[in-house]
């Protein structure tokens, strides 16, 4: 926890406060599967005029539990306070936030490229092969490739394909797994107990990442 920064929590700091100390954080939110929760979580960011770089919802290894992965570029202090507010929501089970070195993460992209370019330009075929792109559809006039990786890798491929008449491009949100997480099955048992153990009560460990999943 950064103790020397005692400044007021400035909700608009993402817009004005300069980029000092900002970095990419991946927020993982475990929730009940409930309509309306998506909005409840999204407005925690929009209320603070905070930009969401990426937002993904997904099922988890536990049937009834849902998971959001949200990526923001912010200071740790802002992210920690925000996560506390998110965890306060009734249907939120647990929130974690991690820097990029604490997670394994991927994004996926689809590219639609004119078929004749692939057929005639060996360079393009080689490029796609080098980047590990997979063919997912072949039509007479176009071919759709799929690739996954980090944002920069995908961006680089997109740039490389642009001169060759890239017809369409789409990228998914980030999905991420926390390196030292043991999953949610065990955790959930704790939540279901009437007298839960210390580890899951409140969000006081939000600032002590090493204790996360320590139960």
């Amino acid at each position, binding site marked *: 926890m950064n*103790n020397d920064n*005692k*400044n*007021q*929590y400035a909700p608009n700091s993402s817009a004005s406060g300069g980029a000092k100390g900002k970095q990419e954080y991946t927020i993982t939110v475990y*929730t*009940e*599967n*409930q*309509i*309306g929760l998506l*909005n*409840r979580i999204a*407005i925690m960011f929009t*209320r603070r005029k905070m930009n969401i770089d990426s937002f993904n919802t997904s099922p988890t290894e536990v049937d009834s539990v849902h998971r959001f992965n949200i990526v923001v570029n912010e200071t740790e202090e802002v992210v920690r*306070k925000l996560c*506390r*507010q998110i*965890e*306060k929501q*009734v*249907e*939120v*089970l647990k929130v974690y936030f991690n820097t990029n070195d604490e997670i394994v993460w991927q994004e996926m992209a689809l590219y639609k490229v004119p078929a004749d370019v692939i057929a005639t330009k060996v360079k393009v075929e080689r490029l796609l092969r080098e980047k590990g792109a997979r063919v997912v559809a072949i039509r007479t006039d176009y071919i759709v490739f799929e690739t996954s990786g980090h944002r920069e890798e995908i961006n680089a491929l997109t740039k490389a394909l642009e001169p060759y008449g890239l017809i369409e491009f789409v990228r998914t949100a980030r999905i991420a797994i926390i390196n030292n997480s043991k999953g949610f099955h065990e955790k*959930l048992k704790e*939540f*279901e107990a*009437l007298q*839960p153990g*210390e580890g*899951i*009560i*409140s*969000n*006081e460990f939000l600032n002590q990442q090493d204790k996360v999943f320590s139960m």
Partner: protein
Amino acid sequence: METLEIVKEKTTAVKEENISGSEAVMRALIAEEVDTIFGYPGGAIMPIYDALYDYDNKLKHILVRHEQGSIHAAQGYARTSGKTGVVFATSGPGATNLVTGLADAMIDSTPIVCITGQVFAHLLGTDAFQETDVINITTPVTKWNYQVTDANEILSALAKAFYIAKSGRPGPVLIDITKNAQVQKFDYKGYEKCNHIRSYRPKPFIRKKYIEQAAALINEAKKPFVIFGQGVILGDAEKEFRQFIEKAGIPSAWTVLGLSALPTDHPLNVGMLGMHGNYGPNVLTNECDVLIAIGMRFDDRVTGRLDKYAKQAKIIHLDIDPAEIDKNVQTTIPVWGDCKETLPLLTTLVNKKEHKEWLKKFNDFSKEENEIVIKKEMHPTTNEMSMAEVIDALNELTNGDAVIVSDVGQHQMVACRYTKFNQSRSNVTSGGLGTMGFGLPAAIGAKYGAPQREVVAIIGDGGFQMTIQELGTIMQFGAAVKILVLNNNFLGMVRQWQQLFNDRRYSFVDIQSPDFVAVAKAYNITGQSVNDRKNLKAALKEMLDHKGAYLLEVMVGKENNVFPMVPQGCSVAEIRLK
């Protein structure tokens, strides 16, 4: 996908019955020991009102004049009774009229359950008559909300609603019930209260380590200072709070919402914090060595400029809501938990002490404030009456036993500064949102929440006109509320700011009022207006002695200001006495 975990039905339930969703609402309310509902009917909630028709003897329904009035009344009820306030409203405009009250209850942590009617489920999203997306409109201003589209969900949704509204840090909950669910029949197997939701931890785990560290800090402190908020009242912890400060001998100051948790004349009560608070508590915040914040959230009206707030002090923060810790002020020791439980743990560990020198400092500041501000306010030399002298005269007659409900503005600050209180749950005001128009409906609710007590609503001429129609509610249902309108012929608080910060450019603060006494009379409410100091006491006495509701308008100085004042953007130590 939309399912609630259905509350596990117990086999002890009464024999199965086939009942409607609306009937289920009634049974849930009775099982939750609801006795009073504030509401207003309409198309989408008609089946519920139809069911209510047969519960007339068990559930008192107060028909307000505007849905905003219903939720403010429910807030007043919750604040004086300690119970959850219940509201009925119809879809569309009925539900949107609740939004101000929801926001108010959210920021002031008031337990409220609103039940709104909604169009038939098959019409959702079709722009049906009186359809609005109530769930999404109210999401930011509710602790929880849920739309019921099937009668089978009603019992579990309401059980969750009442549990969530009242537990942990309380707040408003809204349940939106589509009309088909209200009329749908289902097999009723009994109602079971909710006491656990797996994703919801109303009370954080109490960590002994922090209690010990806090006690050690307090025991070493030379100049400890307690600042407390509504958490003490919501936690029902007034006694525990007193035992703590009395043993440790710590001067204690309150936020506007903490007011009345500690009797005014308690020797350790050093007054009010914040923008219009007392001189000593504000200045000495920046002089204490250990600041102990109990059930309060460091609102900017309390802290003034944050980067100059109590920088010299070690800070102990007791709060039930972990998200409040470090939110505005970095704590040294966070004491998570319900203060009803944490305070006694702390009390056993602190040494018995008196901080006579330190307490004297507060008293010295108090003397100075008295000389420069209070004396003049209480005994003005002009013919115009001051708000403070009215409150002072009222104190003499109520002896500090009345519930005081205030609206928002100068009169609110004066009422908070000068009213005497002997018991808790006696001060009802809109603190966090500062909602003008709150006073009159909240006073009606406060009276239903505490029928044996005298309830006096102190309201400005501006705010009174925002919800003045609730006089009709009083006329019809007879709440014996005493309405004290302090009329300065201005939107006084805004005028004060314009005078001080905008070179007296009085932009649209000159507000005209109708003949309030005549308006009251039209509603069959007795009243009078006084303009002369010599009639003030008699008029106040007549108001209090009157059996039913009463309106007293007191004409006060037009351009009086509330002091002390911490100007916005200044530190609490820069508080101005004039």
